[in-house]
């Protein structure tokens, strides 16, 4: 491992140790924050007893569904917008300001349209993630070097071959960024929707523990969610770095 990684580990470990010390010494009241070791122990207990397995699986399934539909839909919409510049020019300010709109406000409407259950939550996750994918697809398609497209024309490549051999590989880094953001936003959307509005899932479990003053359980669940999201993101980050490195070498 490189020096930077070690320093990073040391920083994170130091922060955790400081937190632990502050909690144990009573500097931070136990009603505000429980020590990280207690969070970890409670989380392990929760996982072992299996009482949150159903919530966990449910959240993961919803995130996965939101992610897959958002990546496919966002890519499709991005391609369409790229092919129609006037439409794109008009739609862009809306896309750029999209994330300031509280999508959750539409949840009651979504329940009526899609029924109770997981579908409205998946739709919120999708709505959250799809725009990041659209914007990055547009970015990626913009960055295709003109020379390559011209070369393709000179070589008389068909539209399908051009798309598969030139457009897709050139846009790939941006598409990857979009995918990465879509993962993050699917998590954010699904968990936030569960948190505010739903009656099941990890987000709900946290809010339930909070409302019942069950601080230890709440922090354990928070730790679980955070670890889960960071693990997924780190996996994507490492994968991306590897892809980029391979590209530079080639």
């Amino acid at each position, binding site marked *: 491992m490189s020096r930077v990684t070690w320093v990073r580990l040391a920083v994170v470990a130091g922060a955790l140790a400081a937190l632990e010390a502050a909690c144990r010494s009573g500097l931070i009241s136990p009603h505000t924050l429980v020590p990280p070791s207690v969070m970890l122990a409670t989380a392990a207990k929760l996982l072992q007893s299996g009482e949150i397995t159903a919530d966990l699986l449910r959240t993961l399934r919803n995130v996965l569904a939101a992610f897959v539909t958002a990546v496919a839909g966002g890519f499709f919409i991005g391609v369409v917008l790229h092919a129609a510049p006037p439409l794109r020019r*008009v739609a862009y300010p809306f896309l750029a300001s999209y994330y300031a709109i509280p999508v959750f*406000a539409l*949840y009651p409407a979504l329940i009526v349209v899609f029924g109770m259950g997981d579908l409205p939550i998946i739709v919120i996750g999708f709505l959250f993630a799809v725009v990041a994918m659209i914007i990055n697809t547009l970015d990626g398609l913009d960055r295709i070097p003109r020379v390559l497209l011209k070369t393709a024309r000179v070589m008389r490549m068909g539209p399908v071959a051009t798309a598969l051999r030139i457009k897709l590989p050139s846009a790939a880094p941006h598409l990857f960024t979009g995918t990465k953001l879509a993962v993050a936003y699917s998590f954010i959307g699904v968990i936030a929707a569960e948190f505010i509005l739903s009656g099941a899932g990890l987000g709900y479990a946290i809010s339930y523990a909070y409302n019942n003053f069950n601080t230890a359980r709440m922090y354990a669940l928070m730790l679980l969610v955070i670890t889960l999201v960071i693990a997924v993101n780190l996996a994507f980050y490492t994968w991306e770095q590897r892809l980029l490195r391979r590209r530079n070498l080639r």
Partner: protein
Amino acid sequence: MIRRALEVFLFLAALTALWQLLYLVSGDVALSSPRDTAIAAMELLIAESFWRHVRETFSAFGYALFIAAGGGLALGLGLGLHRLSGAVAEPILVSLYSLPKITLYPLILLVFGLGMSAKVAFGALHGIVPVTLFCMNAVRTVNPAYLKTGRIMRVSRGAMVFTIVLPAALPEVFSGLRVCFSLTLLGVLIGEMFASQRGLGFLIMNAVGLHDVRTVMAITLLLAAFAVCANSVLLMADLRLHRRV
């Protein structure tokens, strides 16, 4: 210019038509029609009580934006200039960015208590990371020739930051601020939705509880209109800055 306006108009008309269509499909319980929503929005706009909530939300938003932008700039500048800390912090910041921050809301409430400070903290928490990341990357990728020229001309370290690094990084930093603007607003609103007795987020949640679809949609419409207008202005400034370089 006229053509541009026409395009925007057509787009809005298409959106409204889509909305009307959804309304016809799903009925009164789920959505209110564009016409009803516009009327409800008008009613809100002339009501004195509505503006009290608006003021509440926007003062929280103002503080949060100030903290997020200022803190993010300072942090990003520091991390961008110091290579090792930047490399150490980047993945941590990226993970922080992708966290469902709403899970941290109980923590914020326990630390700051109910009320204004919790909202501000939550909004700032949403906004600070993108500014930091954009600013850090912008500072890192400043053309080395500028820095070399500065060194040759014996520009002092402080002057280097203000006369070379910041102006060169400005377009990227501005893009970061634009993202920060949207996310901070969202953060403040979510904060109000979950635990607050005042503000637009509270109004929405209250209306959701009362199943007052019209009000929910009217407030969302007004917020969306504000966000889109503000973002269009920022986007225009952003494009201009990027073109200048």
